[in-house]
Structure formats: structure tokens, C-alpha cells
């Protein structure tokens, strides 16, 4: 089943065409990476998909339904969650509360009028919160204030928040940016594990080619707003167009 599909998706900023008639399809269960040189339009494409930007023209559909015109929270409620490029957490709340917020939205929808019961009386939310914290390895730190976590753990929490929204598809914008090699390694393991455990579909934007080749089923290469190549890691690696775009090839 096709989960995410873009058709002729285009975004122009003034005279600059950041994303140029991109057609892309992502199947259920697929792990796809989006790569390309700086300024290729990767972030713009992600922002179009998550509804942070309005397309100039073209269409994005999720689960067969167009999401153009929806609010970001509606897209999340449809099952597409996003992990931010910077560690975007709720700094003064505890780790557990951070995950609870997403779990509440997942279990009870985007808004509920009758939400006055004591928060301890929502067992499904509690369970989902604890599951997510265990799977990102922060259960032991659930009472810690998010702000006082180190950077690597903050990124894990950020990923945990995105997972607690119970997504069918997860978009990750450079999940390992700014991490130490150890932190990067454990984050990659984490992504692989949750993909298997939850049968998660993901779209990843990443600069680090080692990570990309390690965790992707398929790679989409973007250059100057257009898709120049798509295929398995091996196919993409051997594509002359890709090597040219990267001036000297992907192997450093």
C-alpha cells in the first residue's frame, strides 16, 4: 500500500524553485532516505509534507487522501509524525510529561472538551507513555526535567515524543545532527529497532552517508529541487548522475 505520495509537488520562493515537480511514493513499511547536496530542497520537501509550508502547486497525499489544506495537527492525527532537526522538547516538563503530551493527543484526538478528570485516570495514556520511554531508553529518567538531559538524550526524547504520537509514518530531519559518534551509533540502533518493532515507515533526511546506507531500504536523491535518482543503496551509489551531483561521488 502506498502511504505517502507526492505529485508534481512544487515550492517556489520568489524566483527560486526550491522543490521542482517532485513525484515520490513511499510504501507501507519502507525506510526511505532523502539525500542531496546542500540546498537541494530536502528540508523544503519535508516541510511541505508536514504542512509547515504551503506548496506552490502539486499535491501531497497520505493514505490515499490529499493533505494539502490540513493543519499540522490534523496531519499528525492521520498518522504522520515528525521528529525535529533540533531537539524540540518541552524543556521545563519532566521526561514523562513530555511523552504524555503526545500520548494524550494519540489516544484522545486533537481536542477534547471533557478533559477534567484527574490525569492519573487515563491508563491507556500512561501505558503508551511508559512503553515509549522504555523503547527509547529513558524510562529510568522519567522524572528528570527535559531541560537537564544531555544533548543525546534530548534527541532520544524528541524521537520518543514523535513515537508517542503513534505514527504510521515517521519523518526525521537529521536525527543525529550534532551527536557524538557514540550517540549517533545508539540512535541508529534505536531507529532500526523501532522500525522492526512497530513496523514503522520512515522518511529520513540525513547527511551522514554511512547512516543512510545502513538503515535505508531505498534512497531518493534530490538535486536542485528535482529527484535525480532513486533506488536501493547500491543502485544509487553506482548512479553516475548522483556521483556527479556530489562532485566526486558518495564514497569519500
Amino acid at each position, binding site marked *: 500500500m502506498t502511504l505517502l505520495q507526492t505529485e508534481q509537488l512544487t515550492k517556489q520562493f520568489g524566483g527560486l524553485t526550491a522543490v521542482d515537480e517532485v513525484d515520490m511514493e513511499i510504501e507501507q513499511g519502507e525506510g526511505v532516505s532523502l539525500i542531496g547536496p546542500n540546498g537541494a530542497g530536502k528540508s523544503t520537501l519535508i516541510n511541505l509534507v508536514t504542512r509547515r509550508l504551503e506548496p506552490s502547486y502539486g499535491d501531497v497525499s497520505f493514505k490515499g487522501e490529499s493533505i494539502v489544506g490540513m493543519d499540522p495537527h490534523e496531519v499528525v492525527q492521520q498518522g504522520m509524525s515528525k521528529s525535529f532537526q533540533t531537539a524540540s522538547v518541552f524543556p*521545563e516538563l519532566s521526561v514523562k510529561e513530555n511523552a504524555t503530551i503526545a500520548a494524550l493527543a494519540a489516544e484522545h484526538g486533537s481536542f477534547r472538551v471533557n478533559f477534567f478528570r484527574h490525569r492519573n485516570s487515563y491508563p491507556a495514556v500512561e501505558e503508551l507513555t511508559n512503553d515509549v520511554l522504555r523503547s527509547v531508553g529513558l524510562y529510568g529518567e522519567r522524572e528528570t526535567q527535559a531541560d537537564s538531559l544531555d544533548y543525546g538524550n534530548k534527541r532520544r526524547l524528541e524521537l520518543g515524543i514523535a513515537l508517542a504520537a503513534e505514527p504510521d509514518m515517521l519523518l526525521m530531519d537529521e536525527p543525529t545532527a550534532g551527536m557524538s559518534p557514540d550517540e549517533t551509533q545508539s540512535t541508529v540502533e534505536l531507529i532500526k529497532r523501532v522500525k522492526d518493532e512497530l513496523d514503522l515507515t520512515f522518511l529520513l533526511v540525513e547527511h551522514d552517508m554511512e547512516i543512510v546506507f545502513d538503515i535505508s531500504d531505498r534512497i531518493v536523491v534530490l538535486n536542485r529541487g528535482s529527484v535525480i535518482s532513486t533506488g536501493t543503496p547500491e543502485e544509487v551509489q553506482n548512479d553516475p548522475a548522483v556521483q556527479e551531483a556530489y562532485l566526486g561521488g558518495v564514497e569519500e
Partner: protein
Amino acid sequence: MSDEPRDATPAAASESGADVSDGFAARLSRFRERESSTVLITIVGVLVFPFIFNNLLNGYTQLATLMLIWGIFAVGFDILLGYTGLLSFGHAVFWGGAAYAAGIFSASVSSQPLLVLLAGTVFAVLLAWVVGFLSLRRGGIYFAILTLTFGQMAFYLAASPLAFLTNGENGFTSVTIAPLLGVIDLHGGVPFPLSIAVDNMLYVFVAVVTVLSVAMANRILHSPYGIVFRAIRENERRAEFVGLHVWRYKLMAFIISAAFAGIAGSLFAIEGNYVPLGSLYWTESGAIVIMTVLGGVGSLFGPLFGAGLYLYIENIVSGFETLGSFWHLILGIVFVVAVVVFPDGIWGGIEYLRDKVTGGDES
């Protein structure tokens, strides 16, 4: 690895024998977390307060009553300012609006105190729906200015175009309050067991409403609403991207805070038997901001203290012989000192001292 058994033993022991081995600080913090404790503390507080206030602080019961009324207003305002992170500069419209609605209702529909209270509160809620719907289109300073504008519009509406209803600049003087439930005269004395603590039935009525209001606020803050409000304050965009309809929750916070303002405004009309036009003036919107910040934003009890201290300086300190005429200045100095020394207000200061004493490092 070899450290694990050693570390695990005391942790396991303290979990199993929690009641025996825990320190005072831990027991105190568990007590504070219970909902019934909050209600109990509030009941004791409102019972003891007039005694201390009247005998030790030069106070009088009428002012104590007013302090609780403003306290209810501030507790609700803090849900918006402290917990959701939205600064409204026009809450006088709900305070004064509810006071007028309650007053007019008492004069022309029913003078039953409970119905009057309900009428004022419902009016404030409906008004907040409209004002919030329009003001929350914009964030930050624009939101503050929009609410201020609505407040001033209401003031001028009450001053002249609606003077046939509000009695214009003279204020609404025809408030009539019947005995509570047909038997209890609110402006009369109190029967024996209660008379040890207070001397006035109106205070008892306001105190009961205060306890209920604090219990309600406490419940809201411990419900999913509370956690979502704080999430919006901390990181609005992230809240949107976990799938929450942020705008609707903001409107809800606005309406909830206006409901508290409505309860307080209605009590204000009942207490004074009069609604001054000044209750809609923008300085009242400013006063509630100062009270809340002074008491401590983001705390349940802080705003009650802030309201009390503000009114104390305004009414008692202003009566002091030489200092009295400088009360505005004194209020300013107290505010600056409080904010500089304790950015979290009086309540933040109290918590700081408590943690020093108990050695607890929990929130």
C-alpha cells in the same frame, strides 16, 4: 555492574517500607500531591486567615473578603498567564462585565445569591468565547493589545451607550441580594462554632466559594488540560506537531480563566452591593497581572498571596501616617524587589525556603 547490587538494596528497601523509613520531606511532598490535601490546606487557610489578619495585621473582615475575591480572580488568571503562557491585558472586561451582569440580574431577575453568581459567571464565559475567539488569532504582544482594546471598548460601552442599563459613571447602585437559600442573611452575623473564626456571614460565603474555586483550579491543573496548557507555554509548535489543536486549547484556557474572573466579579458585586464603572477600567486588568506575578506565576496558591499583598498595601499601608501617601511607590518597590529576588514571586520564595528547611530538591 558490580555497583548494582549495592545501589539496588537501599532503593528497594525504601520502596517496600515507604511509610517507615521516609524522611519528613518525602512525607510532606506526598501529602502535597493529594487533591484532598490541597482542599484541606485551603479550608484551614480561609478559616485562620481573618483571625490573623484582624488581630495581628491591622486588618478588617471586609478587606479579608475582598482579598479572597481578588484571589479567586488571580488563581484563574494564572491558569492563562502562568500555565498557558498567554498575557491578557483585558481581563477587567470579565471581572467588571460579570459584576454588571450579576448586579443587573439581581435587580431585575432574581436576587438569590447563588443564581446571581451563576448569571455573572455564565456571562463572563460567553463573553470570553467571543473575545478569545477574536483575540487569539494573534500571538504575543498583539494578543495583549487586542484584549486591552476589548476591555476599553467595554468600559466606554458601559460609560455611555449602555448607561440606561449600567447607570453610567455613577456605577450600578441597584444591586439587591436576598438571603442565601432564603434563610441566611449574607450581611448578618455568624452562629456560634464559626463565630470563633469569623464575624461575618458574607466572608463565610466567599470563603466557601474560594475553597471550591481552588479545588476546581487544582483539578484542572492536574487534568490533561493542565499538562497541555504547560506544553503550549513551553513549546507551542511542538504541541501542534504532536497532534494537538493548540488554538482550541488556548481558547479553552482563556474561557476557564474568564470563568474564574466571572465568579470573582459576581462576588464583588454581591459583596459591595454596588458595581463601580471603574471595575471595567484597564487599571483593573493591570492589577490582576501585578497580583499574579507578585504571588508567583505557575503556582496554585501564589496568586492568592499576591492578591492579598496588593490589597494590603493599597488599603492598609495607604492608611499609615507618613508612609501612607506613598503607597503606590511602596507597591512598586515591593513588586520590583519580589521579582528581582524571587522571579517566581512570593510562592517561589516560600518554596525556596521550604526546600532549604526540608532539604528536599523535588519541584
